[in-house]
């Protein structure tokens, strides 16, 4: 599903060169649920941005769903994000002026679905997160956990093969965090590949596999499910 080989990302200013990622290698299989942990500044977010095609990388190869994305232009990358990737953000990133229906609608508009299809998908995915009866509400009228559920509904509405979550429970209390995690596991169980960045080791435990990032490199892989492919990945 996702294959990164020797990915490096260098931020340059006039005075310093920062290596956010160096020789980063990772292989995520279809249907996998990988958590990414590591200390602040380790390169977690850079990894997430590159994986989600939000940022470009300096060198290396990145295959998403078997397709090399290195030389794609901005529009093609946008299209790929729209069709293949679903995003869940730490601060939910709902659009405050739009009600839940319109929020979930946002990526579907860019997809170019017709009105009926959009409506079906929005209603379906809001039902999935248990918020069907709140469609006309504004984000501000919901609790944090509910807002994150809306964000998940938005991520799922386009039926992406690959879900990227950035500290999905970071702004939530433990009870709400638990329910969001349950939802993610349920989604994963239906076949959607999930990569989740978190700094919470307890949360990371709930993924199938966990990678630990330090100094822009994958330094450790743990398998929570008993699969045995990881070693291979590390060695490239």
């Amino acid at each position, binding site marked *: 599903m996702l294959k990164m080989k020797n990915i490096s990302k260098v931020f340059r200013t006039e005075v310093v060169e920062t290596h956010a990622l160096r020789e980063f290698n990772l292989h995520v299989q279809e249907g996998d649920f990988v958590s990414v942990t590591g200390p602040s500044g380790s390169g977690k977010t850079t990894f997430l941005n590159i994986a989600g095609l939000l940022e470009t990388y300096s060198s290396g190869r990145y295959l998403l769903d078997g397709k090399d994305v290195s030389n794609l232009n*901005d529009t093609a990358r946008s299209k790929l994000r729209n069709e293949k990737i679903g*995003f869940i953000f730490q601060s939910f990133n709902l659009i405050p*002026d739009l009600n839940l229906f319109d929020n979930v609608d946002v990526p579907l508009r860019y997809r170019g679905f017709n*009105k009926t299809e959009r409506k079906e998908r929005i209603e379906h995915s809001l039902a999935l997160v248990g918020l069907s009866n709140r469609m006309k509400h504004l984000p501000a009228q919901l609790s944090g956990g509910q807002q994150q559920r809306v964000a998940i509904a938005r991520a799922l509405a386009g039926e992406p093969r690959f879900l990227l979550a950035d500290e999905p429970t970071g702004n939530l209390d433990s009870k709400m965090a638990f329910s969001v995690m349950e939802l993610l596991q349920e989604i994963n169980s239906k076949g959607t590949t999930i990569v989740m960045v978190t700094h919470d080791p307890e949360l990371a435990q709930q993924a199938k596999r966990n990678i630990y990032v330090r100094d822009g490199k994958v330094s450790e892989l743990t398998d929570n499910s008993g699969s045995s492919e990881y070693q291979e990945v590390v060695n490239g």
Partner: protein
Amino acid sequence: MLGTLEMGPIIRSLTRNKTGAVLIALQIAVTMAIVLNAVFIIGERNDLIARVSGVDEANSFQISSTGFASDFNHMQTLEQDLLDIRAIPGVVAVTTINAIPTSGSGWSMSLQTESGENKTDVGTAVYMVDQNGIEALSVELIAGSNFSENEIRYRDGNQEGWPQNIIITKALANDMFPELDYAEVVGKTVYINYTEPMQIIGIIDQLQAPWIGWNKLENAMLSPEHIASGDFSRYFVRTEPGMRDDIMLQVEELLAKRANERLVEGLRSFEEVRERSYSRHEAMIQILFVVMITLVSITGKGIVGLASFNVNRRRKQIGTRRALGASKAQIIRYFMVENFLITTFGIVLGMAMTMGLNMTLVSVFELGRMNLMYLPLGAICFWLLGQLAVFGPAIKAASTPPALATRTV
């Protein structure tokens, strides 16, 4: 394809953040009302200015002489002046004249087709000229004949009544005898001062009265006379093309030879005379132009300012949209569509205000009624203005990095 225009969500989003949009729409509406009315007024003034006087505007000038010496012989001076001026090479014709077309001051009389008091009359400007008047004014005699040299009289205040023969403009002929062809008017008798008969001996194509604001501007008559009171005479000179300025100086020099007996004044080209009369209209046009340009740029700046502010405020949102798969073009389109909707609202309001303002101007200042075609044309211009103004901020919005979505700020 309409789905990606996002009309519905944009409208719903706008209704939750009305203030900015309403302010822009109001600005557009008021600006539109002012600009369209200004354009309309400019058009009307331009039409006024574009009217032709009938004389050879580029090659004519006037000059006047006032004798003050106690032994000043006016008639002799006048005759000698006419001979001398005519002798200057490049002078086509010269006449004495009491007033200059479009100059602002002159003499008007009423003519009637029947003798007696309380009969319908028609106002006309009176130009007292000699037999060279037609040539000097560069008007065309389209029917009848010119004055003969020996019928030109001196008006020194001691003559009885008016000359026997007059020449009138086609417009005046039509005004007095609407049922006749202008050529048939030649030979008709009209009455001045209720009962004094005068015969129309000729018709000229066109000559404007001195008062540019008069509604009978095209009514003029030529009377075969030299003004001879007050030792004052005014000459109207027509020159060969391109020689006017030289000849103006020569004539001034010629008349000033007797500066100890008379004042030589009022040397002015016809163009200058005309410009002076129309200068208020010209000034109004220029002021309105400045007003329009400033107003449009203020409104444009207002749109840019508010759009930039909105872009900054929504940076996170834009980043999220980009992360969710919006292309740069789609982000640009979002802001363009949003602006289009706001502008449309402003334009609809603006159309009503434009008509309202026009109606007020019509009733208070006797302005003409605006052609309705101004509205759609104005609408197109303001749509363009809006799109142009929002384009910069929209480009800026599109350059928001999608990675902003994952930043927790």
